[in-house]
């Protein structure tokens, strides 16, 4: 476990709310992880491409616009197409509880809503990465 955990923090879709993703990025870096933040307006294809290129252990996506129902599963679908099955994928943002089962069904491991402590995210990643 000497190798640092590598995380891709991503903003899929057109949403510009990046306060949360930036705070989480800073917290993960403070916790000793290497984090690559994609910036805004990433398509699912760009996110998957970046995840493979950067050889990350985790993809952490944030959406507050309501487009999670399309974009999160799309990322999972493309990962599957590319044969990537060793990356832990988590999501956050304004995501109604009733949407969570479908997202988990699609392969998103966990959803972190408003008010989540960054310490909980750090802990979750450490306990659940697939290596």
């Amino acid at each position, binding site marked *: 476990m000497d190798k640092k955990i590598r995380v891709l923090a991503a903003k899929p*879709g*057109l*949403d*510009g*709310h*990046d*306060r949360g993703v*930036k*705070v989480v*990025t*800073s*917290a993960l*870096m403070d916790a000793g992880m290497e*984090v*690559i*933040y994609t*910036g*805004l*307006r990433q*398509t699912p294809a760009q996110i998957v491409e970046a995840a493979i290129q950067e050889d990350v252990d985790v993809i952490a996506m944030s959406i507050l*616009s*309501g*487009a999670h*129902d*399309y*974009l999160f599963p*799309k990322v999972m679908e493309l990962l599957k197409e590319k044969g990537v099955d060793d990356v832990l994928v988590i999501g956050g943002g*304004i995501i*109604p*509880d*009733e949407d969570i089962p479908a997202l988990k069904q699609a392969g998103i491991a966990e959803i972190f*809503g*408003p*008010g989540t*402590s*960054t*310490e909980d995210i750090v802990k979750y990643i450490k306990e659940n990465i697939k290596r």
Partner: protein
Amino acid sequence: MQNINQGLTDALNNWTEGVEKRLGKNPERKQNFVNTSGIPVNRLYTPVDIADTDYLSDINFPGEYPYTRGVQPTMYRARHWTMRMYAGFATAEESNRRYKFLLEQGQTGLSVAFDLPTQIGYDSDSEMAIGEVGKVGVAIDSLKDMETLFDGIPLDKVSTSMTINAPAAVLLAMYIAVAEKQGVPPEKLTGTIQNDILKEYSSRGTYIFPPKPSMRIITDIFSYCAKSVPSWNTISISGYHIREAGSTAVQEVAFTLANGIAYVEAARQSGLDVDTFGPRLSFFFNAHLDFFEEIAKFRAARRLWAKIMKDRFGAKNPRSQMVRFHTQTAGCTLTAQQPKNNIVRVAFQALSAVLGGTQSLHTNSMDEALCLPSEEAVQIALRTQQLIANETGVADTIDPLAGSYYVEALTNEIYQRAEEYIRKIDEMGGAVSAIEKGYVQREIQESAYKYQREIEQGKRIVVGLNKFQVKEEKPTNLLRVDPTVRVDQIERLRKVKSERNDNEVNNTLAALRQGAGGTDNLMPLILDAVKTYATLGEICDVLRGVFGEYQQVSTLGS
């Protein structure tokens, strides 16, 4: 200048000594009291703290320079602030129904929320729009949708605020065209377009073009409206989103006014006189949690902008010197936990905006940390404003907190600290360059991270989140946007395209392309294009082709 006599100073020293002697036995709750801007909050404020404040030059009467006490001489004794709830979702038809509901409920102005594809200049059938159509606002693809949106709403009777930035010229053109169809001439239109691209780069994210052509479009709008739509607020220079992104109150004032300075400079460079467009500049601020800090912030912003416009730009028209502003309560302070507590948070925040002299106000709905606001939640939020206006008595006298040693001292402090930031930004070459260097973004994200750390370390209490928690059922029946909206919207778009005259569309788009490559004012060209039912996406694509697209600067990591 107030006279502080030795007697008062001695008495204060004695009192302080006495209090501090007892602190060993009865300690205060905290070692240091500090507000969100990092300003120490003293135990007590007295005349000593505002000894250097001169009533006439620093505070003065309402409607008198530097407008610290408000921009109008009678303020809410003449008319309450405009109650303006930001709304819009799904289709133009559905949003039109919500607007009519709000007007029936006593709302006095409209505020249009557009979906993200509209805000970023994509039609609903664009690949980039999948998943986003109608989600955070209404989808507008062409003039047809705009006609539906304002169907049965007389545009000479209602003022409309539109949260639109990069494609503001296109939506304003559509609004003018709808009014024309209603028989309302442009000079009768009142309202606001946000049109503030600089805070999109730093805080909100719905940019399209790079700064230079964006600033040109903005000054084209200033110049066009000064002649043709004289009562329209051509920009709403927004601190709201800067604050939502995590800034402090001082940073909110500083970065907003620094952006304001950049717009004024750009307009002057294009040959406009400051007093032709200055009176139509408006502002938009956040009402956050710290009650007195917020009130002082509004007062400080008025004083600082007045001095900037007068001293730096030589504005002579008093209206050019005034900060007229809209306020929205702070969405980022709402909790998903115990959402009914948000009603109370919003009420305090709204009260601070009113005590700070806002011209219009949006009160957030209690369910906004969960979803789009339901009709019931919106109604309570609107009622909160109506309660403040009609029951509390706070609107009966002007700027009632003036003269409070604390509020005046805090107003001075925020003023000075914001001025210091603006000096720093000036040294970097102004707001555009400070944003291009990532300075503003970094300052904001550092404040946001600090705020979050304080919550997680328990230094900052959020009721219901890190203290006073309960086990609760997750709310159900949240408002959802019907997923078929995109399909229906694409069908409408197809119909519009099949019924319009393609030759006219192509000709106006060609003229726009040529104009964008030159120096002509773009507004008349865009107006011609929207009237042929050229779509928002087609118009923005033409401009993308000429201007290119903005690439975000990275501000995280080493």
